Every structure is written in structure tokens, then in C-alpha cells.
């Protein structure tokens, strides 16, 4: 133990400076008060946490969880087949698949998000196309809806899901599928009993990345959601900038970190118990 402590010192230092200390500052600030001009007043107060229970904020909090879970689920459903296809292609196609998945990262994120505005607005590409083929006569309100935000989130974070699942599929021993087939499993059963549990780490990693990133994302909501659909991260961001209420922003941050940890724990539990049930033979 003593020997170990010296070698892990740099890591501890790094974590301390960049994670633990900032977190402690945020925790500490969340229990402080605020003066008239937006400064932070030293002293202990639960006021910031009490404000959270305003129905307005509870609503936003709930909306954020729903949207993040939806984003994660949609990303998972879309990504698994894509990752599966890429992982089971020839080497050349695999390289191309991975390049195509990562290409969006080469372009500035804001530009990509604004591109969705051009596609979705009333005079945008999608509406014009639908009118041209005669499916609709009046342009639809696509932009500044919750749907647009969801679309933007899924679009933004899907590579975060594809890549870990691809890695897990790629590392899986293909002989296991042969063994399952030899023991009488149909391709679908082999997928369910072998491939899914074997890629659990990829599913977990991808889901946590997408979920946590979605809860923290305020740019997509700002650009595609308009004024109506705020997420908790928009509120937090506003507290630290325009509203100048750092204690309230800190309290919301802490509440959301804890919520995310609980969600991850629940998800982890759901994922592990699923394969334990294999024993009962469903």
C-alpha cells in the first residue's frame, strides 16, 4: 500500500487539482447565499436547494431526464445494428465505416448544429421537399420543438455509442457463436445469449457517455429548441452567466451529478441481472 501511494501520486494530484477541488468548490458554493449584485456571500444556507423544488425547475429536471434517457435509448437502438454491421464487414469496409462514423468530428460542432437549422426551419430543405412532393401544403413547425432537440442530441452523440459497441463486438471471440450454434442455438438466440452479454461493457460505456453528455449539453437545446424547451444544463448555464446566481447553479449541478450517478447505477444493475436470468432459461 505504502509503495503504491508514491507511484499513484501524479494521478492523485491530477484528479485532485482538476476534479476533487473544483467539485468541492461547487459543493461549498451550493450552500452559500447570494447578494443583490450577484456576488457570493459566505455562510451556510439551504436556500439554493430549496429553490430547486419550484415546480418550474422540477419540470425542467424531469424533462431533462426523459430527454436524456430517450436520447440514450434511440442512440443504442440505432448504433447496435450499425456497429454490428461494421464489425462484421471486411477489413476495407470496416475502415470506411469507422471513418464515416467519425467524420462529423472533423467539422466544428456549432456549424453542424446550425446546419440542422437550415434543414429544419420553415423555409428549410425538409419542408420544401415535403411540399414539392405534395405530401403537405403548409410548412411544418420542425425547428424549435422537443423533437428537434432530441434529433440534435441523437445526431451529436451517436458516435459515442457506435464506437464502444464496435470495439466490444470486434474483441468478441467469434468461436463463441460457433459453439452456441453447435449447441443448438438459433442465430437469434446466440445473439441474445452470447453476443449481447459479451458486448455489455460496450453498451454500458456508450450509454453512460451518451446519457451524461446529453444531460450536460445546452448548445443543442439553445439552437434547435428555441426559448421553449430548456434543459437543466441551460438553467445551470444561465445561473453562472446572465442570472449571476452561482449558489443556485452549483446546487443544480450537484443535484444533477447525483441523479446521473443513480441512473448509471440503476442501468448497471439492470444490465447485470439480465444475463443472470439466462440460467432460468426464458
Amino acid at each position, binding site marked *: 500500500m505504502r509503495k503504491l501511494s508514491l507511484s499513484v501520486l501524479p494521478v492523485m494530484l491530477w484528479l485532485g487539482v482538476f476534479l476533487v477541488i473544483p467539485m468541492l468548490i461547487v459543493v461549498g458554493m451550493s450552500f452559500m447565499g447570494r447578494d443583490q449584485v450577484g456576488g457570493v456571500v459566505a455562510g451556510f444556507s439551504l436556500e439554493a436547494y430549496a429553490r430547486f423544488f419550484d415546480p418550474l425547475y422540477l419540470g425542467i429536471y424531469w424533462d431533462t431526464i426523459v430527454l436524456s434517457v430517450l436520447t440514450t435509448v434511440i442512440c443504442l437502438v440505432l448504433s447496435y445494428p450499425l456497429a454490428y454491421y461494421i464489425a462484421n464487414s471486411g477489413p476495407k469496409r470496416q475502415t470506411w465505416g469507422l471513418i464515416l462514423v467519425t467524420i462529423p468530428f472533423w467539422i466544428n460542432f456549432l456549424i453542424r448544429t446550425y446546419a440542422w437549422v437550415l434543414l429544419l426551419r420553415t423555409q428549410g430543405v425538409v419542408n420544401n421537399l415535403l411540399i414539392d412532393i405534395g405530401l403537405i401544403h403548409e410548412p411544418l413547425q420542425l425547428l424549435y420543438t422537443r423533437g428537434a432537440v432530441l434529433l440534435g442530441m441523437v445526431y451529436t452523440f451517436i458516435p459515442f455509442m457506435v464506437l464502444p459497441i464496435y470495439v466490444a463486438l470486434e474483441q468478441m471471440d467469434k468461436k463463441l457463436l460457433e459453439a452456441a450454434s453447435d*449447441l443448438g442455438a438459433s442465430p437469434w438466440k446466440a445473439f441474445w445469449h452470447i453476443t449481447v452479454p459479451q458486448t455489455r461493457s460496450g453498451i454500458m460505456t456508450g450509454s453512460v457517455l451518451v446519457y451524461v453528455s446529453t444531460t450536460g449539453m445546452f448548445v443543442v437545446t439553445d439552437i434547435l429548441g428555441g426559448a421553449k424547451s430548456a434543459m437543466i444544463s441551460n438553467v445551470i448555464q444561465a445561473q453562472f452567466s446572465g442570472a449571476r446566481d452561482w449558489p443556485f447553479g452549483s446546487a443544480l449541478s450537484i443535484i444533477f451529478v447525483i441523479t446521473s450517478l443513480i441512473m448509471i447505477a440503476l442501468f448497471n444493475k439492470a444490465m447485470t441481472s439480465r444475463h443472470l436470468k439466462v440460467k432460468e*432459461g426464458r
Partner: protein
Amino acid sequence: MIELAEVEKSFGGQVVVHPLSLTIREGEFLTLLGPSGCGKTTILRMIAGFEQPTSGKIMLDGKDLTHLPPNRRDLNLVFQHYALFPHMTVEDNIAFGLKMKKFPLKEQRQRVEEAVAMTQLTPLVKRYPHQLSGGQQQRVAIARAIANKPKVLLLDEPLGALDLQLRKNLQSELKQLQRSLGITFVYVTHDQEEAMMLSDRIVIMNNGQVEQIGTPREIYATPSTLFSATFVGENNIFSSEGRLFAVRPEKLRASRQVDDSKRSGEIMDVLYLGSIHKLIVQLDNEPMTVSIVFDLTDDRPWSIGDKVGVDWNAEDEVNIGP
């Protein structure tokens, strides 16, 4: 039992298994023996259903299997590197096939117990594969296959990854298991000693072609081709008057009378191996060495450099072609 009729396999225009017809009998321990790349594993994978023959038919109990997927064939394969499911315990691994075939829970438990007892895994059932040694994993792989009570068990170099001592132990265990189960074993190996020890019949393969099929005794005593004469056991190959024949080292005699012997030569080496000893003799008029094996009744003092005559009985010559 299993009938291969003119089964042929090629990959991308390259023939890996030449047309092959073979009948595997019920309850038989049959070994496909040959060097790596000879096509033996491909044959096994075709029987299991992981490869489709390019042409020909595979029948099990008179039923055509050729186009059935592996999960619908009533036989099981023990994989070379076991392919145990890492996320399942030993017990769950063994029960997997029974679950897929939807056996009632009670029968599943009973069959798992039987298989576990037969492979001496009882104390390990709750472990995961990564907590087991190589030999134990091997046993799980076998238990997982036999729990299904297949008509035929296919084994792809099942002992290939184990060290020599463990191999020897498991060889005799396998043989006993096959006797007590009474099911047909089709076994693939490149180890000729293993093949001799375990098999009822051996199919010797080389370059995708069958060289010889026979009992271990037939293969040893009367090899029919140059390849099988030299691949199984040690052999001396002579050619005379346009014909090629083999004489086993223990059938050769050495004597000090050089003149009236069939061949003569000079001793290059004397190898003492405990129960036997062996002379390596460089022949006089041919660029080859022969080995001669004596048992412990021979107590003549041989030394390197001695001139010896080499002789044998005509009936010990085994013709292996022109």
C-alpha cells in the same frame, strides 16, 4: 452412422479436401490424422456444419445433413480452444445446449449433474471459465458437449493446448469416457502417438487427400503409401529394382558379417533409450541412414565407426508403391 459421399471442399478455387468417401461406424473412435493444413479440420467442420461441402453429401443415420445449419444437427463439437462462454459459470455452460433445446428444468439439472460427475468437475460448477486451469477448461468443454447426449462427438485437437503430462492423463480419460458413453467419436489430431493410442480406426490425410484408412495395427504394420509409412512411427525406406518398400527399425538386424548381408554400412550413432537401444547406420552405397532398434536381449558392444551388415526377412518388406 455417418456417411461422407464424395465430399469435396475448395476455398477460392483451391482444393483443400479432395473427393472423399468415408463411413464412420456406430460407437467407433475414428481419428483424422495428418500434418497441419492437410484438410482434417475442414472435414470435421463440414460434419459439424460450419463449412458447406463444395460437392458431395453428408449423412447421419441415413438422414441428409448437408444443408442443415449446425444448430439442427444431432452432434456436438469440442473446440480446439474450448470456446467456453466467459460470462457463464461451468454449470451454465454445460446446461446451455439443453436450454436451447428447451429440456424441462428437472432433466436439465439431472443431465448437467451426470456430465459433471463423469468429467470430475463437481467441485467447480459455480466457477467461471477464467478461474479454471487449462485441463479443467478442457473438461468443461467435453462436459458441455456430452450433456446433449449427441449421437456423435466431434473433437478438434482437444488436447492440443495442454502440456505433455496433462495430455497423457487426459488421453486415457478420453478413451475411457468414450467406452463408457458408447457414442461415436470423430477425433482430429496431428499427433500420431495420440492417434495410435486412442483410435479404433485412423484416417491418414495429406494435402487434402486420404493416404490410408485402417486400424492402428494395420497402419503400423502395413502402411500403403510412402507418407503413411513415414508419418506413423519410425521407418526405413529402401528402393530396389524400381520398387519402394519399408522395413521397421525393429525388423532390421545388424551383424559383423558384412559380406552376405543385404546392405552394409558404418555406425554413425548408438542411442541408448532404456528399454531399447538404437543404431544409426550410414549405408555404404546409398546416401541414406537407417535405424535399427534392439530390445534389451541384445548385449553386443556396438560403437561408432563399426562396420556392420544390415539384414532383414523378405516378409518384413512392406511395399509402398513404385
